[in-house]
């Protein structure tokens, strides 16, 4: 009898396992594949490996200083090998942490037989039943397939295949202009591919602040990517070594594109293998498992976290929910505030955001003020030679509450951390302005934007 059993060893599941063990619970972690889940094996970490490696090439190739850049290219085999090494190191690191906490890891597909009972189906050998007082479902998500497009893994891929592929296309079509589509587009652009993005919605990165969306779209355009908005993918046909993609453009006109590769990046769907909602009478919320703010499902002693419950499908959201759910199992009453979950995008430049967009803040009827600071005015950004970027702070005009922070530019994904801390600790915009920042660093831009909120930025022209 375990105190806690977790199905799924991704950033939700393994964090819950560690937290539980730290609090003295006897923990079972069920994983059908490799620990670390999508994040480590097929998502966050592999893309970042490729982003940084290809960015190196792109930076060198566009350098005004380096010579001999025409001959530069990336050894794709080595790039994939480095990614595999990195993933392997991290996975074995997590395995070591599991072992150090004496967490039992059962290999195989985990099935919720009933509340408190989990059947594990290993690839080889008979299924085994385990019992646990508390069960956390953390099965994550997988790429969402379009019914009319058959993924063959070579010419038509999802990120699962693309992130382990040693062949990179000269010409690629990406269906989906969300976070995944934009990050993958950036990798191919860095490698010099011809990239076309087909997006159903009126904008790429549709949940982000308008200024962020505009900037990213403009940067993509400058890099030669073609973005079709309000465009509906209709068909994909393999033609020899190529794939032909047909879509209906914003004007309703059918367009056919021929490319070496099609990447389907239309979002992700929850993994419900081993979770038979009907049989278990488990309440669902659309395709996701329904949970309350304490992350309890409709079944007693059964909790669900991460991509499986929807919301923002982010590794750190899953991890945060893991910590909260264990606290609740131990008698606490905590919840994850969606507003305090940051979002990061590694596009051709980085994006780090948290909280409400300017449009959302206005829609709430709040009286807001916006503070801005462009990277062009930052000594640090200038010295780096990349001044594409800005910090935008949205604050409640009356209370100074930081309602949202949006950063685009080099190191935006790191810079947003300061806003996360400030918002979590309920600092006001003025608190950000009262800090002393090291010079010359990009961290100064946050302070300047906060001062600009009161019209008092130092390195800005008088308004």
């Amino acid at each position, binding site marked *: 009898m375990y105190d806690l059993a977790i199905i799924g060893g991704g950033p939700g599941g393994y964090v819950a396992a560690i937290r539980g063990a730290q609090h003295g619970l006897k923990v079972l972690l069920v994983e059908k594949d490799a620990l670390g889940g999508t994040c480590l094996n097929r998502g966050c970490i592999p893309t970042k490996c490729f982003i940084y490696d290809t960015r190196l090439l792109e930076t060198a190739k566009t350098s005004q200083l380096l010579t001999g850049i025409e001959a530069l290219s990336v050894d794709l085999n080595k790039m994939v090998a480095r990614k595999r090494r990195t993933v392997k190191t991290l996975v074995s690191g997590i395995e070591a942490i599991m072992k150090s906490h004496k967490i039992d890891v059962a290999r195989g597909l985990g099935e919720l037989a009933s509340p408190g009972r989990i059947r594990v189906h290993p690839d080889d050998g008979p299924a085994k039943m385990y019992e646990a007082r508390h069960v956390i479902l953390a099965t994550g998500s997988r790429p969402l397939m379009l019914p009319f497009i058959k993924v063959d893994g070579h010419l038509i891929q999802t990120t699962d295949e693309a992130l382990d592929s040693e062949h990179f296309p000269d010409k690629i079509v990406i269906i989906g202009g969300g976070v995944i589509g934009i990050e993958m587009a950036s990798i191919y652009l860095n490698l010099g591919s011809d990239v076309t993005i087909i997006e159903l919605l009126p904008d790429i990165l549709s949940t982000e602040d308008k200024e962020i969306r505009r900037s990213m779209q403009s940067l993509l355009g400058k890099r030669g990517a073609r973005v079709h908005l309000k465009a509906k993918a209709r068909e994909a046909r393999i033609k020899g070594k190529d794939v032909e993609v047909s879509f209906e453009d914003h004007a309703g006109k059918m367009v056919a594109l021929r490319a070496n590769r099609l990447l389907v990046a239309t979002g992700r769907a929850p993994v419900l293998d081993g979770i038979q909602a009907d049989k278990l009478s488990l309440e669902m919320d659309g395709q996701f498992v329904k949970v309350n703010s304490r992350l309890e499902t409709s079944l007693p002693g059964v909790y669900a976290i991460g991509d499986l419950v929807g919301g923002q499908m982010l590794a750190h959201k899953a991890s945060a929910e893991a910590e909260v759910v264990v606290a609740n199992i131990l008698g606490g009453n905590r919840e994850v505030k969606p507003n305090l979950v940051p979002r990061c995008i590694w596009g051709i430049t980085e994006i780090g955001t948290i909280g409400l967009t300017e449009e959302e803040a206005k829609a709430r009827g709040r009286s807001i003020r916006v503070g801005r600071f462009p990277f062009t005015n930052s000594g640090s950004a200038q010295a780096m030679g990349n001044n594409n970027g800005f910090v935008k702070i949205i604050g409640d005009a009356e*209370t*100074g*509450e930081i309602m949202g922070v949006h950063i685009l530019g080099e190191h935006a994904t790191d810079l947003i951390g300061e806003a996360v801390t400030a918002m979590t*600790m*309920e*600092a*006001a915009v*003025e*608190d950000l302005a009262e800090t002393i920042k090291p010079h010359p660093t990009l961290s100064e831009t946050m302070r300047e934007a906060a001062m600009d909120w009161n019209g008092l930025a130092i390195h800005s022209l008088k308004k």
Partner: protein
Amino acid sequence: MIEKALDSYNAGEEKEPVATEVVLPMLGITVEKGKIVEWVKKEGDPVEKGEIIFIVEVEKATTEVESPASGILAKILVPEGVEVPVLTVVGIITEPGEKFSEDAVPQAQSPSSVDSVTMVTSQENASMAADGIDIIKAVPAARRMAREHDIHLRDISGTGPEGLIFARDVETMIARKARPSEVRASTLARRLAEKERVPLDEVTGSGVRDRIMRQDVQAFLKEPETTEMPLGTVIPMSTVRRVIARRMSESAFTAPHIYFFTDACLDPLLDFRSVVLPDLEKRFDIRVSINDFVIKAVALNIMDFPILNAQVNGDEIHIMPEVNVGLAVAMPEGLIVPAIRNADRSGLINIARQRIDLVQRARQGKLTLEEMERGTFTVSSLAQYDITHFTAILNPPQSGILSIGKTDEKLVMEKGQVTVKRVAQIGLSVDHRIIDGAMAADFLQNLKWKLERPSSTFLTV
């Protein structure tokens, strides 16, 4: 830490074993406090060991306390009329001829031994005690430290047994004082509090290390202002009421009660009484009441069922050697239950005498504690009210209580004829831990039989 602090104190205490402390004695297991109503001896009077030195009032009863030693009553520490906890040092006796010095007074006024832990309070607290405020208990090291840092002991909550203050408690307070009461709150919480005029020091923080977050201020604002709702009349509980409250809940929650009721035809008893009454009044100048008959009948019945005279003591059942039947007497301050001693062996006249005396002294507040605590079974009658029957809560540690409702004329079928009878409903509550239903039913049935056949029952009297 605890032991160390106490050791150092105990070592210090051995220095001057001069005077004898006079303490307010333990006056029964349920007694927590007492009030000295009279110092029979005055300061400077010689006293003999065993002589009455003061009279204490507890739960509306008074008890005489004997001197623990012979000598001179050198100092009275607790004046008349002040209520203090039992085991409080109330006076000092010195040996004859020995010159009394104030230094000889243990700096003390508090329980001198509780759980074999010795505690001392300072003179600062003596005045507080005189005001009727609870005495603060602290180890000497804590007192010294508090004095040095100008901290009042009353501001410290002790972590030791019964709130005893240790040095570490003083240290905690010193540390807190070093950090002036700066309220830790987030900027947004502060701003909201300022706007809504919420006193932040009254808000409970839910953030990291109890930091006050905005939601805490919002929750404070949402709270119905219960504290400002008029409370109506506030009546502090009297000592008697406190004791009743505690004993009743103790009884209800420790002894599982079961209840039995039956009708008793009282015609024969009422007739019997009217026959014997004139003669008894003439011979003994006393009016024997129906209650006296009931008490006697109960006592006789207990002789047949001794388990109804039992008390639970840990894992043992103690059958009490005396049958003392308590009589619930309603007083303005609350119910008290003086007991008629040896009701089984006493004649009706004796029972009536005891009853009249006890009730009279109960009304005057002159009962002794012994009279109130000696009961082994209780009779509670509401016969003078328009109440047919009621359930009674056991008077701990007793195991049985009889409840008597009014006597009514009722139509009864007897031998095919409808007749009118005077009937009272009698109820029995017992402690089901030691008395089973069949036993209780048997007891009640036999009591009914006794009451309905007075000439047989009281013949031997």
